[in-house]
């Protein structure tokens, strides 16, 4: 066991998968000697060499498009897209090819790749370095979309993603890259994609969240003094509806918290599914606490945009009092 940050846990997962499987390789901008702009790939270039940790040209579509070819040939590429806001240029390759290769070839070709992307706001970064586009990819059939909220989860989920036979977008909440440490086992372990984690149990209300927002939710729960169950989805697609359903049927009340804009956000999908599965158990309308339907503001105002413990707290009060 070591006390690791989320960055260190991801680094450890990459090292262990690369040690274990020589099909695993890394490519992206600045991932080589520089170790990535967030130092996630620190030391890997030295350890595994330039053929397996590749500084690519500055081209996101190129990074993902070549990764698709590498994966079709049987390798396990782990490309890094440097920031959430730069995923856009790669969208065509992701949705037009990676996501649909298995189905359009009826299994003759598959694309086992893991796209690592730092995601979300809260670190005073420049424009297009703070977005939360997870729902775009959750809405693209053929992908799996993962977002851990802790070092322990990050390691187990990344190993699962690399070993997954289908394309996975692995979003890393950059706000908590180094925000706290956690005991992370040295040994490799896998956390199944598609399984949520119950962060804390409760009886009065359910909160469903993922990524860095989970930390805000924990603070809000502590302040509220109520018995609240917090579910960290961990995987946005396919998401663990069983965990949500079981909890909401128990509590009858639900708040969904995410950093991405509200309209068409993944919270809307969860709320609709709660209506389908739990309608007769609901004591209050499901409420969402989300980013606003605006452009993510520059960093002076980013904390006004992002759901914080106070906004989550107001939702808890409203839903509990309904």
């Amino acid at each position, binding site marked *: 066991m070591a006390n690791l940050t989320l960055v260190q846990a991801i680094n450890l997962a990459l090292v262990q998968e690369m040690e274990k499987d020589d099909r695993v*390789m890394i490519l992206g901008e600045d991932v080589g000697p520089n170790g990535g702009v967030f130092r996630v790939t620190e030391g890997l270039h030295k350890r595994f060499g330039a053929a397996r940790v590749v500084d690519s040209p500055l081209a996101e579509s190129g990074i993902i*498009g070549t990764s698709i070819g590498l994966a079709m040939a049987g390798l396990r590429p782990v490309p890094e897209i440097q920031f959430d806001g730069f995923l856009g240029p790669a969208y*065509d*390759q992701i949705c037009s090819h990676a996501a649909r290769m298995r*189905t359009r070839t009826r299994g*003759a070709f598959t694309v086992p790749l893991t796209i690592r992307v730092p995601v979300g706001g809260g670190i005073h970064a420049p424009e297009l370095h703070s977005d939360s586009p997870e729902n775009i990819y959750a809405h693209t059939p053929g992908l799996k979309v993962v977002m851990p909220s802790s070092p322990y989860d990050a390691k187990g989920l990344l190993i699962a993603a690399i070993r997954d036979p*289908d394309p996975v977008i692995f979003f890393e909440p950059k706000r908590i890259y180094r925000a706290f440490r956690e005991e992370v086992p040295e040994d490799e372990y896998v956390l199944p994609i598609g399984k949520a984690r119950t962060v804390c149990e409760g009886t009065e209300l359910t909160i469903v969240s993922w990524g860095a927002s989970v930390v805000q939710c924990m603070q809000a729960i502590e302040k509220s003094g109520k018995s609240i169950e917090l579910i960290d989805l961990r995987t946005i697609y396919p998401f663990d*509806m069983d965990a949500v359903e079981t909890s909401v049927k128990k509590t009858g009340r639900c708040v969904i918290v995410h950093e991405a804009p509200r309209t068409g956000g993944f919270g809307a999908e969860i709320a609709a599914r709660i209506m389908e599965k739990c309608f007769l158990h609901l004591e209050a309308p499901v409420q969402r606490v989300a980013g606003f339907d605006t452009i993510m503001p520059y960093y002076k105002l980013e904390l006004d945009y992002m759901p914080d413990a106070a906004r989550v707290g107001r939702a808890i009060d409203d839903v509990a009092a309904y």
Partner: protein
Amino acid sequence: MPLKTVFSTEIQHLSILNEHGKFDAKLGKDVIPDKDLIMLYEHMSVCRQLDEVAFKLQRSGRMGTYPQNMGQEATSLGAAYALEKTDWLVPCYRENCGLFYRGLPMEYILLHWMGDERGNAIPRELYMTPLAIPIGTQMLHATGLAWASKYRGEKQIACTFFGDGATSEGDFHEAANFAANLDIPVIFFCQNNFWAISVPGKIQCSAPTIAQRGIAYGMDCFQCDGNDIFAVVKTVRDAAKYVRDKSRPVFIEAVTYRLGDHTTADDARRYRDQAEVDMWKQRDPLIRVRQFLKEKKLWNDSKEAAMKERAEKAVTAAVERAENITPPNRNDFFDYMYAELPDELREQRDTMQTHSLGQDPAQIAQPVDSH
């Protein structure tokens, strides 16, 4: 000297058997043995026959939209013939002839355009990727496939096919840039057929050749007569040797012409002159090979008639196989989404015939009694 030339270059155009049937014996020496030339001519003829039949199938409602290959047969065929059988062919969607030569059964192409994904389930041992519909994106896959070969220390290379229009796409630039800067063994094979649907080549590229686009990446670049099977074979063969030995990409522009419409949904008379089409019909890759074979006494009208009959039979059989395939299973579009079907998709699949979408039956309201 304050002002000096730091770089200059030239693009060479290769022609061996020209449109008038003139054969350059020196350049054409040992490029294609006679017996292979006959075989290649048959391949082009069968492909042309499929094109004609496919057109009729579409017009009679037996097949969806189809892009004819007519006029461009020599480009992909020459490339496939010049490459090793384990080199990746990474096509766009007008490379039937090369794919059939490599061994793709014709019904796969028919099935694709008949709206059946089983046409893309290409056997692994053929080393070809399925048709790519968005323009230019497959060049990056070819670069990745060739990169994987290099990563494993193998000698396999990739050859990706695309048109003049595709060189306007950003992915062309990204693929060329990756391949050149990371020393990836891939051939970029541009089939310049002068038209991207209705948009003429000059709107895609205002330089004198498309081939020179590759120079900016530090690639060796070649142009050849794409309607001359000899020129295509020699260009690709020489390029492949270099690519394989040096682990460097090359760019080839094969100058050809789309004799048909873009697809069966298009009417090229709306935007191009018949005189231009007529001129290119004189440069048809099949005509000049046939004349060449006849002059060498390797071909005659009775052989042509016998071959026509074989071609018709082969195409008819392929159409029968495509049309008589078992109907697709509606579960398939769920079952191939992921290696393991997520619960949510399993539920959608299992209830697609009996439910709306996912409503828990226990919660569906009972009709209110209206007495």
